[in-house]
Structure formats: structure tokens, C-alpha cells
């Protein structure tokens, strides 16, 4: 059976995140969520950080979630999940759980809830070795509060707190969250992108079966924050990968592996220019971005070769 059919069968008409939620028209996040949950072959319990996904999917007394779902606050998703996962282990250990099938614990947080305000809780959970899959849906800014810069916002991007104005947008390089996760020496870390859904789906399977914490950093678009029509999303995200702006790779037990080799010559401007947040970039700044991408790419290749 094709992978996509498998996902369809798993969903079986009951999507983990059903329609009727209040995310924007064309929002890139639901696809990430469904691809991930549908790729897991056990029951799933989701812990969510505050952010667009959470706010727009659970307006009381409605809910878009067909799977067990828990939200406590913005900065603590990994800590909450640590508690849930420990409860599961404790109760199982005492034989106090009804069913005894394995459960996959999935954490869903935006880049703000991962790179910035949620980092410490995540790092602590990594160190303690909780068995969960932490997914950062990385749309490169705080979207829920109206597009402010985050640690994930790339160099040059305009946001409401790094306005282009007379300046250049964000002056700093993005935090390399995937590398930070790798530095925690957890069993599985991967970088993925929503439109490379097969790659993503495979990574989710590996992550779910890892013997310890796993981290997935998944790039997805936000038409509102990036400033593009929803229908451009597939080509934009494709360009992000092909231009090597967002390489797809994994680090399993410390071993780097490029999971997708870009297939075509693609300049990063193909990714940047259709987006309003980059509209102010001068050719010089784009060249600077290009050079940084090259350097990062070479370093990554080096690690994958090794």
C-alpha cells in the first residue's frame, strides 16, 4: 500500500485535527499535524504549546481534536509532556493502566514555543530522556500574536518587531535549533519540511520508535506572516529545500544523514522574493544570505560524509 493510503487508512475518516477549526485559510500547519499523527501506528497523546494551532483549534466548548490533547501554557509543553509520559511509565509499572498498548507521546509547538520560551523545558526533558516525539512546526515567527520575530526568524526577514523600516529586518542569524537538539545527544533528530511529506512521514516513524526523546524541526509556511498567497506555499517550501535554505537531514544516534539531495539548481531568491517579509532585501543582502547558505550546506555535507 502506498504511504499516502496508509495515512488515509489510519485517519479512517476521523482526522486527528478535524475541519471547522479557526486557523487561517490556507494555513500550513494542519498538514504537518495530520501527516505526523497519521504516520504513527499506535494511539497518540498530543501535548500542545500555546500558539496558532492551539488557540485556533480549541475554542471552548468546541474542539478540532479527535485524539487526546492537552495544553497548559506556552513555554512548558516539554515539561507537561514529561509529566504525562512519566505518569504513563509509573502507572504501567504498577499495572494500573487499563489497556496496555504502547502510546506515542507527541508534542506540538511552534518555533516560539521551541526555540525561545520553550527551550529550557525541552532541554531538560532531553537530558532526562523522556520518550516522546517533540515536533516544532517552524513557521519562523510568533504568528499567533501577529508576526513577531523569534529565534527561528531568518536573517533579513521583516516582522513587526524586526521591521524592515529603514533597517534590514532581523539583523541576527536564526538559532540553529536542529543543531542544538543534536548537541543533546538524543537518539533521533531530524529536519523536515511539510511538502516533503514522505520524507517527513518516514522521519516520524523513526522518531516514534527511537529509544528516548526525538526531535523534529518541520518547516512550514504561514501565508499571513510570510506574506504570500496560500497557493504559493507548495512552490515556496519546495524552493526552501531545493535552494538548501532548509536542508532535509536526520541525525540518528549521532550519525548525520542527508535524507534528500536537492535535485535542481535553485537560487534562494526563488524562496525569498515571493514573500513580503523579504521584499525589502537588497541584492547585497541576498548575496549575504546565499553565502551563509553555502557555508552551512558545506558544513552539513561534511558531517554527513563523516
Amino acid at each position, binding site marked *: 500500500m502506498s504511504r499516502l493510503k496508509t495515512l488515509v487508512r489510519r485517519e479512517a475518516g476521523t482526522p486527528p485535527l478535524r475541519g471547522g477549526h479557526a486557523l487561517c485559510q490556507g494555513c500550513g500547519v494542519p498538514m504537518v499535524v495530520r501527516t505526523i499523527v497519521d504516520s504513527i501506528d499506535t*494511539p*497518540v*497523546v498530543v*501535548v500542545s504549546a500555546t500558539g496558532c494551532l*492551539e*488557540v485556533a483549534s*480549541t*475554542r*471552548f*466548548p468546541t*474542539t478540532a*481534536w*479527535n*485524539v*487526546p*490533547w*492537552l*495544553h*497548559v*501554557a506556552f*513555554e*512548558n509543553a*516539554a*515539561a*507537561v*509532556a*514529561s*509529566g*504525562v509520559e*512519566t*505518569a*504513563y*511509565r*509509573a*502507572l504501567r*509499572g*504498577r499495572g*494500573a*493502566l*487499563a*489497556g496496555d498498548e504502547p*502510546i506515542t507521546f507527541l508534542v506540538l509547538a511552534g518555533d516560539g514555543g521551541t526555540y525561545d520560551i520553550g527551550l*529550557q*523545558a525541552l*532541554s*531538560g526533558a532531553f*537530558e*532526562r530522556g523522556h520518550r516522546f516525539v517533540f515536533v516544532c512546526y517552524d513557521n519562523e515567527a510568533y504568528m499567533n500574536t501577529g508576526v513577531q520575530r523569534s529565534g527561528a526568524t531568518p536573517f533579513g526577514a521583516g516582522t513587526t518587531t524586526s521591521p524592515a523600516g529603514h533597517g534590514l529586518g532581523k539583523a541576527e542569524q536564526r538559532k540553529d535549533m536542529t543543531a542544538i537538539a543534536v548537541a543533546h545527544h538524543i537518539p533521533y533528530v531530524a529536519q523536515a519540511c511539510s511538502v516533503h511529506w514522505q520524507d517527513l512521514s518516514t522521519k516520524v516513524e523513526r522518531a516514534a520508535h527511537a529509544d528516548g526523546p526525538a526531535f523534529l524541526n518541520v518547516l512550514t509556511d504561514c501565508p499571513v506572516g510570510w506574506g504570500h498567497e496560500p497557493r504559493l506555499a507548495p512552490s515556496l517550501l519546495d524552493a526552501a529545500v531545493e535552494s538548501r535554505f532548509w536542508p532535509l537531514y536526520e541525525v540518528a544516534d549521532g550519525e548525520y544523514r542527508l535524507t534528500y539531495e536537492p535535485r535542481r539548481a535553485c537560487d534562494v531568491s526563488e524562496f525569498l522574493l515571493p514573500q513580503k517579509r523579504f521584499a525589502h532585501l537588497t541584492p547585497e543582502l541576498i548575496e549575504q544570505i546565499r553565502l551563509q547558505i553555502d557555508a552551512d550546506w558545506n558544513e552539513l555535507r561534511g558531517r554527513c560524509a563523516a
Partner: protein
Amino acid sequence: MRTSAISARVMTGGEAAAEAMRQIDPDVVPVYPITPQTPIIQGFAKFVADGRARAEIVNVESEHSAMSAAIGSALAGARTITATSSQGLALMAEVVYIAAAMRAPVVMALGNRALSGPINIHCDHSDSMLVRDSGAIQLFAENAQEAYDLMVMAPRIAEHPDVLLPVLVCQDGFTITHSAEPVVLLADGAARRFVGDYRIPHPLLEVSTPTTQGPFAMPDYYYELRHQQVAAMAAALSVFDEVAEAFEHISGRRYHSIEPYELEDADRALVCLGSTGGTVKDVVDELRAQGERVGLLEVRAFRPLPVDRIRAALRFVPWVAVLDRADSPGGRPPLYAELLATLHRTDAHVQSYVYGLGGRELHPDDIAGVFARMSQERLEPEYVGLREAECPV
């Protein structure tokens, strides 16, 4: 409360809390170290390492995560206890509110300690006061025995279906946590049976009946959801009594949400929380022996505050002095303000005395001094024993 010398052991309040935890045998204990709470978690960690308790301890990386993990664990379906003090409680304050709102029956051993700044490790109640609006229950122990007893009672109060709120068992930092006193423990089995099994309405781990927990609420529902907590607090007052009665059956020790001491005919009464109550009782006895009609109202349940009972207990006391071990600069000391709200439309003259911030001693003489001064009209709070206090502001 006379402790039986025969079965009592000399232990600190911290050790006593750890013993209670061992007997309760919780499933999960997420915790972060901070003085003066550390003896509790260290004691308990040793019990686990020695195979005398089964809990999974989660050594989190901050108190914010301690309470977050506790919420996750408690809502998942596991009995959960944590412990903290001072800055730890301050750092987790955000999630203490959420724990209450999500009705997570987490039990917390709180070693009361002054808040920074300046940084200080000794007792006052400013940490408790910081979360007094959070919706968490707060019970104050007078001594190590009470710290133990209230810990054993706490899960049953927290987990009662009409309550489902976090319970903070507060013991004065150092003064109780680190003071060794005789403590009578229940038999392990009796304590375990008393506590019973953990049950909540919607364990998250019941994957066959998925639930969404922690949704977003607009003004159309937020108001009513918040009011639930007010109702749960009201229920907690009778649940406290119920549990206290059951506890009396197995221990012989009976607790009440307030403890009136020599109030019947008192013309002056102090009101206070925590270990100070014991010292005041000695002073009351002494002054009574000299013919003075003084008394004490010790508040054991600060949240829920037993408003009607306090009113009733102080009904005939013309002069009341509230001892606050916390303050609210630019406002009124917290217990004092609450007491006035409670005694509104009575004839009592209620005065405010702040004492003991950051572990400053309150000696019997100081207390006697308050009793001596309090029958003169005065509306401004006084800092008892302040160096150069002549110009109180």
C-alpha cells in the same frame, strides 16, 4: 495537641513530610531543589533509592517545569506530589493558577520562605500570599506533627470530586522544616488505606475516550469556568471537615479549618498562620495566668478561608490584631485585609501587625507587647520589632 511520647519519633517537619509522601506512595514526583524545601525531596529521594517508595521522581530543570510536569502527570491519571519554597513558587506561579483552573489535584509541600529581594532563605509567608488568588487550597501547619498530618490528609481533599484543586501544605521554613520535634506517624498501611486510590473524571491516558484539555475560552465561557473554581473552593471547606473527621478515626487527632484558643471570653485576640500560633498559645497561657482575657485564632485553612467560622469565632471579641508574616507595600497586609473583609459589619477593632519577614524572630515578649498595645484605636499597620519603628508608614 499532645503527642504521645511512646510512639513519637524526633524528626523535622521536612522529614515528616517526606515520611508522609513515602506512605502516600504517589505515582509521580516532579520537583526542583530549593532551600528550605530540600530536606523533603532529599528524604523522599532516599526512600525511593532504598526501595521504600515507588514513585517516579522527575528531576526537572526549573520549578516552572515542576508544576507543569505535575499538571501533566495529574491530568494523565497519576497521583502527583511536588514541593517547593519561595522563588520556586514564584517562578511557577503562572502554572499554579492553571493547575487550579484545570482542576489538577496536585499536592505540594511548601516550605514557606521569604521572597527575594533581597535574597533570604528564612521564613515568611510572602510566597504563599503570592498565589493566594490562584485557586489553590492552602493549609498551614503549626508544627512538624501537623505538617505530617496535613500532608496525609491533602490527597483526599485535593482529589475529592467536588474539589479537584491543588493543595499546598504550608510549613514555616526552618522553623518547622528544619526543627526536630516529636512526631507520631500512622502505620504505613493505615495511611495508605486512608489516602485510597487516585481517581479523576477524565484521565488523559484513556485514549479510547479522547478529551481536549486546556482549551481556549472567550468571554462567553471564561467567566462561568472561573466561577467553577469558586464553587470548588466552597466545597473544599466541607470536604476538609469530612476528611479531618476520617483522619481523627485513624489518628485520634482532629483538625479544623480554624483553631480558636481561649477565645470564649477574650477581649483581645490575635490572628495568625503557621508556627507562630504555638508561641502565641504560650503567651496566652501566661497572660491568662495573670488574669488577662486574651486569646488566639489560628487559621489553618487560609484557602478556602472559613469566613463564617472566623466571624463566629471572633463575634464577641472587641479587639482583634492580625499578625501578618507578609506585606503588600502600598497596600494592606494580606491576612489583615482578608480578616477585615471577613469581619465587616461587626464591632471589632481590627489592627494590623507585620512581623517576621525574612525570618526575623518574634519572641514571646513581642507578642505580649502586641497584646498590651492593641486596645488603643490605631488604623495603620505596625512592623513589630522594626529597628527605629517610631515612624511607621
